[in-house]
Structure formats: structure tokens, C-alpha cells
């Protein structure tokens, strides 16, 4: 059942991307091009997508927050609160990549349906980037643990 529910959610999410045309890199770049404002070429649609998404998600989250999920034992709300360097650096790197092509992860994956060779290459590179970060972070954690172990041994 959780897998079916998740299938439905992915489908609704994808329909939202299709109807709002956020699957189109051209449409996204037309929003990001703030220098297009004076010439009238600027397309504020993405801001409307976010505003509508936030209105529904904000209201809906407030309504479901006190409940237990239907197919799980607890709601996994993110708990991190610190604005740290990885958050800001990661967001900046993501923004650079987003601006280069006009694709973020959701639309990139939905656009796989078009079998566009460029999109397929983008998604493979994106997956490699994710795995690279996972490996790099787990290596960082290991080095840190070794340092701790070393310090304890030396101190002992």
C-alpha cells in the first residue's frame, strides 16, 4: 500500500509539472532571466507555481501534522535547524547547474518520458553527482571517526 500511495503522489506531482509546464526548461529559464524584465520577455509563471504550491502545502501540512500517517508509524519531518556551510554551498552549486540548463530534479526525471537524449544524459550525470556526494560524505564521516579513535588512543 505505501508503494501504491507513493505511485499516486508521484503521478499527481508529475501532472502538476506537466500542467504548469515546469517540465519545459525554456519556460523555467524564461523565469530565471530577470534581464528579460525590461524587454517584456520575462515569464513569472514559476513564481505562481511556487505560490500555489506553497498555499496548498502550507495549509495541508498544518492540517495533517497532528496525525499519524496512514501507512507508517510516524511522520518524518526534517529536524535540522542550523543554517550551515553545506546547506549554502550545496544550494549554490545546485542553482548554478539549474541555471545552466533549466532543469531541476523533478522535471528532469519527468522529462525522461520524452526520451530526449540530452535529458537522459542530464539525469545520468545527476545520479553520478548524487552518488559522488554520498561517497564523499561517508568518507568524511569515516575520516572523522578515525580521527576520534586516534585521539582517544593517543589520549589513553
Amino acid at each position, binding site marked *: 500500500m505505501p508503494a501504491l500511495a507513493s505511485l499516486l*503522489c508521484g503521478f499527481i*506531482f508529475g501532472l502538476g509539472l506537466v500542467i504548469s509546464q515546469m517540465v519545459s526548461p525554456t519556460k523555467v529559464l524564461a523565469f530565471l532571466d530577470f534581464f528579460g524584465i525590461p524587454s517584456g520577455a520575462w515569464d513569472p509563471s514559476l513564481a505562481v507555481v511556487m505560490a500555489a504550491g506553497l498555499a496548498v502545502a502550507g495549509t*495541508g501540512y498544518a492540517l495533517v501534522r497532528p496525525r499519524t*500517517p496512514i501507512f507508517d508509524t510516524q511522520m*518524518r519531518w526534517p529536524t535540522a535547524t542550523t543554517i550551515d556551510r553545506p546547506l549554502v554551498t550545496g544550494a549554490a552549486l545546485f542553482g548554478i547547474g539549474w541555471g545552466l540548463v533549466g532543469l531541476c530534479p523533478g522535471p528532469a526525471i519527468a*522529462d525522461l518520458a520524452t526520451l530526449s537524449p540530452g535529458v537522459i544524459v*542530464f539525469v545520468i550525470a545527476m545520479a553520478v553527482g548524487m552518488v559522488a556526494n554520498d561517497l564523499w560524505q561517508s568518507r568524511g564521516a569515516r575520516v572523522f571517526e578515525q580521527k576520534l579513535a586516534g585521539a582517544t588512543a593517543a589520549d589513553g
Partner: protein
Amino acid sequence: MENFTPISAAIGGALIGLAAVLLMLFNGRIAGISGIADGLVNPRTHDRLWRLTFIVGLVAAPLAAALVGHGVPMPRMPTNYAIIVVAGLLVGFGTRLGNGCTSGHGICGIARLSPRSITATGVFMIAAIVVVALMRHVIGG
């Protein structure tokens, strides 16, 4: 602003918000696409099935739209594959380092009024706007 499509943008955005609320109500999960996709490729995750079906649903949506006669146009991508690869690597690495993308931070996070997500969204928006300005009006212009 001849390309501005406020009505379809509002309907589409509302559906994205609805999907995020339903995923929390059903499975107790945040609808962050980079996080969901990362769990599929990260060797350390163990809960792959719901992630996989979410991605299947996401890809099925444009196919279903095509079936009812509203096919998604072929995305316009850069002709230079080096740019595509670099952009893909940056999006993959950056969203994991920053723990979220347009959906996880931009929709789900801001909807929770999370200061981390508000910060991240501001940063990736500004970075993307600067890159587009440079590409279109400095290098390209």
C-alpha cells in the same frame, strides 16, 4: 509577458502542493525529489520500493498526458553535451550537499516555514538567476 500562463501555473502548482501533502499523510514523507531519487541510487538506503514507485508515477504523468492528446514537447536542451553533464553533476552533488532541491526546500520546506529551506531557496534562486544573466547577456550577448 506574452508567455505568462498564470492559470495553468496555479493549477499545476496546487497539484504539486497536494502531492506533497498526500505523501506526508499516507507515508509520512517529505516530497523532495532529490532526496527520493538519492535514496534509489545511494547504496546505503534500504527503503527503495516507495521511492521507485514515486519516480514511476512522476514519469507516467507526461505519458498519460500524451495519451489524452496533451503531449509534453521535446525539452530544449543545450547542444553542447559538456554543459549538460556539468549541469547534471552540479544539480546531483549540490542537492545532496544542501539536502534538497526546488521541491524539498522550495515547496515542502518553505511550507513548514523552515529557515534552512528559506535560506537554501534564496541561494539557489539567486545563483540560477546570476548564471542565466551571465549566459544570456554577458557570454551569449
